[in-house]
């Protein structure tokens, strides 16, 4: 034993700076992402996408491609008549047979000996098109006489030859609608001394995960499907793939290799996944399909453009009276999760601040554009942009300090909003005051306003914005739960098998911390298993900032059961009541005396090697005490809610339109900090993602075609541009959260653009209501060389 390395105990692990457990592998290049995995006998797949934006497919000729040496299979829709529709509205088939609605549309696919051969074969496929009118914007799409994107029934033919309508013809281009109301808008207006109204235009951006999309599909000799997948929702996808393929879900196993970034992009099934599966089925070989970066830009999801009209009012004492909002979302050609972002937007619109009368109507509109998915923040960046602009405008209109105005309307702990959200822990006012005082917001705000006309072309300004987001899961499925299995070995090493998925956010480390804290073990005593649906228990997936809260409570529950089992065994062995015992530093101790009774490993060995052989292996399933919303969108959908305020300091060069983000001062109600290093990383990364949304990123789509599908023209923030970041944590110790913690993953990205917009106004006196704040857009706005967005005329 002495030759072995002894574990180090550092007391409590909670709140410490704990390095990410998988970081050494990643930093040394040893981590095998899906791109790095090759299976014996594997074929490589490539997809032929449409060269047209909107067209009927007249003919497809795959003869030359099939004849190319090294090609194992070429498939079109005709080869898989049994394919079934995918997506949230089940409105498209993986392979398009008669019509394309976007340049991303998949027409054929090749499996070949190498990527080069597959790519060469794809070029040999000839497609004859008959062009259809292009619906380029949501506004065009709503005009009378606009071409209908889904004006025909979508029909599939089952394996038995039976034809089935899987998506009904639609008589307009409206993909989805949401209507929410509380109170009475005319009453609110009547009480208002000031009413403001604006139209906001939010732009297209995309995830830009550094690891491009990919999948490997393989069938075994018994026709069981093994998928290596980057999915964020493996258990939901098992079920969906089973429906797509007419398989028993129990015969599908999903392995998630380490994922090169998610941010919501991997919440849906996209056509390339079933296509790889079809090819694996047809060729009886493992099939690997990896995107190029250009393909990643073209065929992975987006944060959708939103046109948002908002009217708001307040009383002379600063209290909000009403908010009336209508939005139109560019849904793109098909329906994915992007269409449901209003679920989140309405929370911000109705409940970030107390607003007694509120109305929210929204439509997601089909166009020939890239289709909208879920993206970190899920509509909240767009909603917050508008709400926070109006908070500043209303404050100014009644001559009130913007911080004071927000404090008057901010939610308090205990509040139940008209939408039914119950804010059990709520540090919103602390967030506002902390961010304001640490940034010296009020003084800087007043100083900047005094310099609008000082003749200096370079202006400085401060802007403030806050956010509300789910922080305790989101009950949008019947269950929002997660399972954990803890297996302890003879040396008190634990295997923590969690349903949760890891996309880089650090869940494995936080879950290990929570279990170790409970079991008195060091982190080195834990292996986390989180990537195989045949091994791990069910979990709804990594989304909605839920993993620390939900999977954390689940891991804690399993650890508590293991602890109880160990203490019961120790109690009987040492003849002391279990309540007197505890686990600390790898030992069972007597709480009263601090005496170390036995090493946990030794105790477990004595259990294993006795005639009453027993394992310390526990399971726990955590389901949060939240509720699905009713048909009117009312309900306490999360077990906890996260809050944050960010103040930004910017510099605007009025002669060039360049906006520099100098500093971001954030205060985040995170419940409790579990891993300080990890949570700082989430916030800094989110802030810079928000900076990209505000200042540099812009997916340029013209007539359905993406004009900048590369990192040269789609500008991500680089290291020299990052702001100074100052983060304060408001620890409200949520009663339901694991060790008091709440979710944080999406929060930091939400406020930045809204705060920058307010800062540009503070610096220049010009309110810009359209994103992004690129030099050209800002210059034009400052020099009255552009029109502010207007509402849709025909609608």
């Amino acid at each position, binding site marked *: 034993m002495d030759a072995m390395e002894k574990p180090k105990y550092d007391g409590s692990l909670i709140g410490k*700076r704990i*390095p*990410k457990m*998988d*970081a*050494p*592998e*990643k*930093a*040394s*290049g*040893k*981590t*095998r*992402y899906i*791109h*790095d995995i090759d299976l014996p006998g594997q074929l490589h797949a490539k997809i032929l996408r449409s060269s047209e934006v909107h067209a009927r497919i007249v003919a497809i000729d795959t003869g030359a491609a099939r004849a190319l040496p090294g090609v194992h299979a070429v498939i079109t829709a005709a080869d898989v008549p049994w394919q079934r529709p995918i997506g949230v509205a089940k409105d498209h088939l993986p392979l398009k047979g008669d019509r394309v609605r976007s340049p991303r549309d998949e027409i054929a696919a090749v499996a070949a000996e190498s990527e*080069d051969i597959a790519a060469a074969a794809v070029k040999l496929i000839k497609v004859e098109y008959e062009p259809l009118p292009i619906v380029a914007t949501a506004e065009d799409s709503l005009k009378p006489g606009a071409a209908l994107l889904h004006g025909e029934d979508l029909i599939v033919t089952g394996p038995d030859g039976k034809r089935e309508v899987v998506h009904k013809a639609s008589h307009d281009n409206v993909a989805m609608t949401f209507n929410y109301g509380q109170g009475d808008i005319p009453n609110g207006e009547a009480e208002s001394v000031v009413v403001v109204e604006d139209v906001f235009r939010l732009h297209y951006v995309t*995830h*830009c*995960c*550094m*690891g*491009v999309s990919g999948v490997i599909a393989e069938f075994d000799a018994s026709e069981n499907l093994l998928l290596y997948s980057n999915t964020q929702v493996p258990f939901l996808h098992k079920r969906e793939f089973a429906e797509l393929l007419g398989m028993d879900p129990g015969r599908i196993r999903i392995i998630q290799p*380490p*994922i*090169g*970034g*998610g*941010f919501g992009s991997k919440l849906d099934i996209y056509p390339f996944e079933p296509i790889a599966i079809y090819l694996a089925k047809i060729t009886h070989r493992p099939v690997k399909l990896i995107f*190029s*970066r250009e393909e990643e830009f073209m065929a992975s999801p987006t944060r959708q453009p939103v046109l948002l009209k908002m009217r708001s009012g307040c009383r002379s004492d600063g209290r909000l009276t009403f908010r009336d909002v209508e939005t139109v979302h560019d849904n793109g050609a098909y329906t994915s999760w992007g269409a449901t972002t209003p679920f989140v937007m309405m929370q911000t619109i109705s409940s970030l601040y107390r607003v007694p009368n509120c109305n929210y109507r929204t439509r997601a509109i089909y166009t020939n554009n890239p289709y909208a998915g879920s993206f970190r923040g899920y509509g909240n960046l767009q909603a917050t942009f508008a709400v926070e602009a109006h908070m500043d405008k209303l404050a100014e209109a009644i001559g009130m300090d913007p911080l004071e105005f927000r404090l008057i309307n901010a939610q308090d702990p205990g509040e139940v909003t008209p939408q039914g959200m119950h804010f059990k822990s709520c540090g919103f006012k602390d967030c506002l005051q902390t961010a304001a005082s640490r940034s010296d917001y009020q003084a800087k705000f007043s100083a900047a306003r005094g310099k609008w006309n000082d003749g200096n072309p370079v202006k400085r300004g401060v802007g403030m914005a806050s956010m509300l987001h789910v922080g305790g899961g989101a009950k949008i499925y019947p269950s929002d739960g997660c399972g954990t299995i803890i297996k302890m070995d003879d040396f008190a090493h634990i295997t923590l098998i969690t349903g949760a998925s890891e*996309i*880089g*956010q*650090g869940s494995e480390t936080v879950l290990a911390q929570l279990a170790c804290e409970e079991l008195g073990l060091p982190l080195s005593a834990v292996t986390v298993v989180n990537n195989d649906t045949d091994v791990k228990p069910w979990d709804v997936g990594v989304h909605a900032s839920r993993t620390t809260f939900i999977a954390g409570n689940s891991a804690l529950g399993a650890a508590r059961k293991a602890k109880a089992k160990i203490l019961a065994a120790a109690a009987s062995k040492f003849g002391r009541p279990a309540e007197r015992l505890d686990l600390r530093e790898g030992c069972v101790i007597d709480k009263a005396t601090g005496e170390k009774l036995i090493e946990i490993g030794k105790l477990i060995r004595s259990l294993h090697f006795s005639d009453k052989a027993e394992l310390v292996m526990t399971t726990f399933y955590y389901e949060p005490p939240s509720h699905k919303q009713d048909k009117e969108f009312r309900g306490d959908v999360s077990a906890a809610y996260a809050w944050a305020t960010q103040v930004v300091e910017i510099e605007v060069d009025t002669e060039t339109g360049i906006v520099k983000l100098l500093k971001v001062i954030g205060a985040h109600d995170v419940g409790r900090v579990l891993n300080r*290093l*990890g949570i*700082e*990383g989430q916030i*800094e*990364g*989110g*802030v*810079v*993602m928000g900076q990209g949304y505000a200042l540099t990123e812009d997916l340029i789509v013209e007539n359905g075609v993406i004009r900048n599908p*590369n*990192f*040269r023209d789609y500008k*991500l*923030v*680089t*290291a*020299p541009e*990052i702001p100074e*970041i100052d983060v304060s944590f408001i620890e409200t110790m949520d009663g339901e959260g694991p060790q008091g913690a709440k979710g944080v993953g999406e929060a930091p990205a939400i406020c930045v653009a809204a705060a920058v917009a307010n800062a540009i106004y503070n610096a220049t006196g010009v309110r810009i209501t359209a994103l992004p704040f690129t030099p050209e857009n800002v210059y034009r706005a400052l020099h009255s060389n552009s029109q502010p967005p207007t509402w849709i005329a025909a609608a």
Partner: protein
Amino acid sequence: MSPKIDVAFKLNGVDVRTTVSPGMSALEMLRDELHLTGTKYGCGEGECGACTINVDGLSANACLMFAADCHGREIVTIEGLVSDPRTEALKKSFVAYGAVQCGFCTPGFVMQARNLLEKVRSPTPEQIRRGIEGNLCRCTGYKKIVEAISEAAAASS
């Protein structure tokens, strides 16, 4: 049949020979022919830095270099730096300072940071930010990467 080219070069201190096609990039050769997957494909256009390697002592994007051009050169990848003190210091500080999240860009950053520290022993934060401006990271917001490189510089100088 497409023509093939024989190349011979030093890879991570070892003489290697392989046969490549004219259009193949050094990145494809390293990953697909030589099975060194620590060098990542992020964009294939020299914009993201995930494929950063060292060629004759200089930082290079493996995706922009033809495999055939490796002939006669000395190539170093992340896998070849397991006993390089500067790289070890960098890896350690990347871990300790939280500079790794999804990790896909990390080997490229480590390679680029090593190159920077070879040229500038004690860079200022501004020099570090400039030194890694060709590498993209979508997770961390770069702050912790800059801190990690600063710390590694202090530790190894």
